[in-house]
């Protein structure tokens, strides 16, 4: 049967019609082979526009449809549904992109019109060869993997678990809580963080739907939305929690002393130590016995333990889990203040970071002070560090900590030196007002440098409001450090195939419309791994990620790609190049026949194998050699 093709040219308001002579294009299209009808219309995606297509399919008996409009990323699903409604298979549609690839990028109307004609002629040449394909669905493994046990991961895990699905929660550290476990209080409400996090952790660890694996890394993830398989490596703590009675004798005899990263390196700890969740663990990287089977104390920890709780025979465990959705909640790092040498961090013990301040406050170890200076934007909004973004929390952290000083040491002179104060969150501006009323002095100027004169620390800046350089004496300087992408972001991005934005954080698909989804279907982002965030925004995003992940889990089925690769076994020589080329592991050589076969569930239709196949035995539906060559034939 001869194909009867309809061509529909969209004006996109003036987006296309301003640059492309749509009427001339219509006349051109009308004269192409096998064309039953060619129309143009202001907005083809509108209801009346779509009605033009459905009516023509019915009245004129169209077999194939070409829509010349925007990118298929924008409206291919729309028009597939349109022709399906009128009884055609959704896959006998071809889009000609005359907006992004023509009208938007050209200014010469004559040439743009000619190009639009070429694009449409090529689409018409291809569409005649398109064959109907079946839409397919596969069953979903109704459980989720949450990577990261901070406030984002904990919240997301709880939401999914409370909806009745199993959750596997993997945390790198030996304890749950993440970054906020280090903090003293929140802003602007100044609640004790411990009061927030402890019930959350308890709820997660006791939830019957949540399986927590701490001290563990996600090593590998295969599969696709609805059907992922993750390999998790759980590292041993070398302490049997069932036997340990937390007497801490082991800690006293451990010869290894190292900076305690939980305390932001303010204190030291031993290789065996009491983790923040009060359980005793051995830090495998620090323990010389784990590393090299040598210990200066022989290892004494084993000898002094009355309950035989220490077990160096414990080994790594590899755990495989099948899940339908993945939430990445790996959090953010903190800016390394030594990268701003003018602030003297590392040179002066009384120059500390805001995170160190939190630890001192939480440990009730703030020392009496007379003159305190807070420095804003340390490592944020700063091209010299490469971190050009605003870290969004530091202004309020500065304000909260300044208030804490005023409260604890009312006589202290507290100065915040700032470039801008950003108090954009709910209750933030009011909090900023309240802090100023406690007598905290805000002076506008980004600190230039810190040095000593006559043994006193001098903070130098320009007070830009009085337009003069000023020197503020300080016995404590707190650097409001920003957030950075975690060092491990590369690792997790590679494992999951996630793109990153220019700032190094993980990238959402669309900043406004799809803020928790990633380029990988079924993988969602929560919290500061996607960009600097406070606790409020982190929890909101975690719950959004959980709700997005719940959609495929609840439905139980997901649609998969129909335009997949097929092997003509008659032609296949069994060379295996397709197997080596495929990033999704879809093709495999059949043991019996020696020929390649493509797993239709794993195949994404990318076409890599088709290009690699030397005997042209593989075709990707909707990109077959005949379809592509017919396009090329009209173009050259």
């Amino acid at each position, binding site marked *: 049967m001869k194909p009867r093709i309809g061509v529909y040219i969209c004006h996109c308001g003036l987006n296309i019609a301003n640059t492309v002579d749509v009427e001339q294009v219509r006349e051109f299209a009308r004269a192409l082979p096998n064309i039953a009808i060619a129309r143009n219309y202001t907005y083809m995606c509108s209801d009346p526009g779509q009605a033009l297509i459905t009516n023509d399919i019915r009245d004129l008996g169209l077999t194939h449809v070409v829509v010349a409009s925007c990118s298929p990323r924008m409206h291919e699903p729309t028009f597939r549904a349109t022709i399906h409604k009128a009884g055609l298979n959704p896959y006998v549609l071809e889009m000609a992109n005359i907006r992004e690839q023509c009208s938007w990028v050209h200014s010469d109307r004559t040439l743009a019109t000619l190009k639009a004609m070429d694009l449409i002629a090529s689409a018409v040449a291809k569409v005649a060869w398109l064959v109907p394909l079946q839409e397919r669905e596969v069953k979903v493994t109704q459980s989720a993997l949450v990577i990261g046990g901070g406030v984002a991961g904990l919240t997301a895990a709880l939401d999914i678990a409370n909806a009745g699905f199993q959750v596997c929660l993997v945390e790198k550290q030996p304890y749950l809580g993440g970054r906020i476990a280090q903090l003293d209080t929140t802003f602007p409400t100044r609640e004790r963080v411990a009061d927030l996090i402890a019930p959350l952790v308890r709820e997660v660890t006791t939830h019957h739907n949540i399986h927590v694996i701490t001290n563990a890394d996600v090593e590998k993830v295969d599969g696709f939305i609805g059907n992922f398989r993750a390999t998790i490596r759980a590292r041993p703590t070398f302490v049997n929690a069932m036997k340990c009675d937390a007497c801490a004798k082991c800690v006293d005899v451990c010869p290894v002393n190292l900076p305690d990263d939980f305390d932001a390196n303010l204190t030291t700890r031993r290789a065996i130590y009491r983790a923040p969740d009060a359980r005793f663990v051995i830090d495998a990287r620090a323990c010389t016995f784990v590393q090299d089977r040598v210990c200066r104390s022989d290892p004494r920890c084993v000898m002094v333990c009355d309950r035989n709780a220490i077990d160096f025979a414990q080994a790594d465990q590899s755990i495989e889990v099948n899940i339908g959705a993945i939430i990445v909640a790996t959090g953010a790092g903190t800016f390394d203040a030594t990268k701003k*040498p*003018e602030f*003297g961090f590392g040179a002066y013990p009384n120059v500390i970071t805001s995170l160190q301040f939190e630890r001192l406050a939480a440990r009730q170890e703030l020392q009496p002070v007379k003159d305190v200076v807070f420095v804003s*934007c340390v490592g944020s*909004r*700063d*091209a*010299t560090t490469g971190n050009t973004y605003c870290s969004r929390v530091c202004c309020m952290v500065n304000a909260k900590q300044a208030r804490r000083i005023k409260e604890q040491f009312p006589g202290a002179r507290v100065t915040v030196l700032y*470039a*801008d104060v950003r108090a954009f969150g709910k209750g933030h501006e009011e909090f900023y007002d309240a802090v100023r009323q406690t007598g905290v002095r805000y002076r*506008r*100027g*980004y*600190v*230039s*440098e*810190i*040095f*000593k004169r006559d043994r006193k620390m001098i903070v*130098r*800046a*320009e*007070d*830009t409001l009085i*337009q003069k*350089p*000023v020197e503020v004496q300080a016995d404590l300087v707190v650097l409001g450090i920003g957030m950075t992408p975690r060092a491990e972001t590369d690792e997790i991005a590679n494992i999951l195939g996630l793109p990153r934005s220019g700032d190094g954080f993980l990238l959402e698909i669309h900043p406004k419309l799809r803020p928790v989804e990633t380029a990988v279907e079924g993988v969602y982002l929560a919290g500061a791994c996607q960009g600097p965030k406070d606790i409020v925004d982190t929890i909101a995003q975690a719950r959004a990620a959980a709700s997005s992940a719940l959609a495929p889990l609840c439905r139980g089925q997901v649609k998969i790609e129909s335009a997949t690769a097929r092997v003509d076994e008659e032609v296949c020589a069994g060379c295996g190049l397709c197997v080596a080329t495929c990033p999704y592991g879809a093709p495999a050589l059949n043991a019996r026949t020696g020929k390649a076969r493509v797993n239709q569930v794993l195949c994404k239709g990318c076409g890599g194998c088709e290009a690699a196949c030397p005997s042209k035995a593989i075709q990707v539906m909707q990109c077959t050699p005949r379809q592509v060559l017919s396009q090329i034939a009209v173009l050259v």
Partner: protein
Amino acid sequence: MLDTQILVEQYGLTACIQCGKCTGGCPISPKSTLNPRALVYEILRGEEFELVSRGELWDCTTCATCGLRCPKGAKAVDLIIALRAQWIESGKIPATLRAPLTATLNQGNPLVLPREDRSLWADGLGVKNVAAGAGLAMFTCCENAYDPRVQAMPRALVNVLRAANQDFGTLGLDEQCCGSEVRRIGEAGLFEYLRDDNLGKFRAARVTKIITTSPHCFNVFKNEYGKHEIPIEHYTQTLAQLIADGALKFLKKIDATITYQDPCFLGKQNGIYDEPRAILKAIPGAKFVEMDRARERSACCEGGGGRMWLEGSNPKVRIANDRIAQALETGANVLATACPFCFLTLSDAVIATGNEEKIKVMDVLQIAQAAV
């Protein structure tokens, strides 16, 4: 009237968020009305800007701290140089600059001394001309070549390089001003002439590498001569490498406590902090101590940016005097530096503060020579 729009585009001024980081860290801001942040704002506003009432523009030492620390990549120092250039172009050249600039054109040096006397510093040393095939050229700063107070440095470099068995030469009478200060004064045309002429002379003499005595010559060759093929080193880099390779050995003890002034053009502007310290720490018997303000937090001596020929708007206050006090705080009796300008300003400050008995300013080269 000044075309401010060109300046805005050329120096990335729209990036400025008026945070004041530049002015707060400006070494001369305690003694001058020069305010880089306010200057950027004025140019950004594009309103009438009257150049001649802005004598403070000549206070800038071009230490470049403002631009290096700017969180938005705006280059206030380059704006100041551009404004000076407009000033020079208008013909109203500050009186003390006229003779040095003319002499640089005619005699190849700003000290207003004859071109023929350029090599007098090397009398009796028998240094060969690099054109004879040495390849490695030692480049002497005009200050080192002509000013008797700092002629000892190139002589010391000759002796130290010889002790390390290096084959090297000089450009002889073909050597002339590098143009670093000329460019910073705003005499862009003269700078371009010197750049092209010097590059031509280096190539004609088949120079394969240049070692400079001054961080200013080093910086201009390395960063402002455009793309060229000749590797440039400041002598501290050369010596530190020779020590690391075992080619240069210090045998004589020096009983001194030494601290070190980072020249802005070597440290802040080019990140060379470790090499001079490595040399000083290799001196037998000497104790090396750091000032509080060191490396990225070091303080300017006030000698750069043409300030050797300009008193500035507030000559009563010398920031080098503070530096002497800071050096004394460390307990050092030697204040080392690696720049002829730093050497001169700091030496003057030792005398001005009456500390000749307590501390002596020395170039790293003089210390190295004494230890060989």
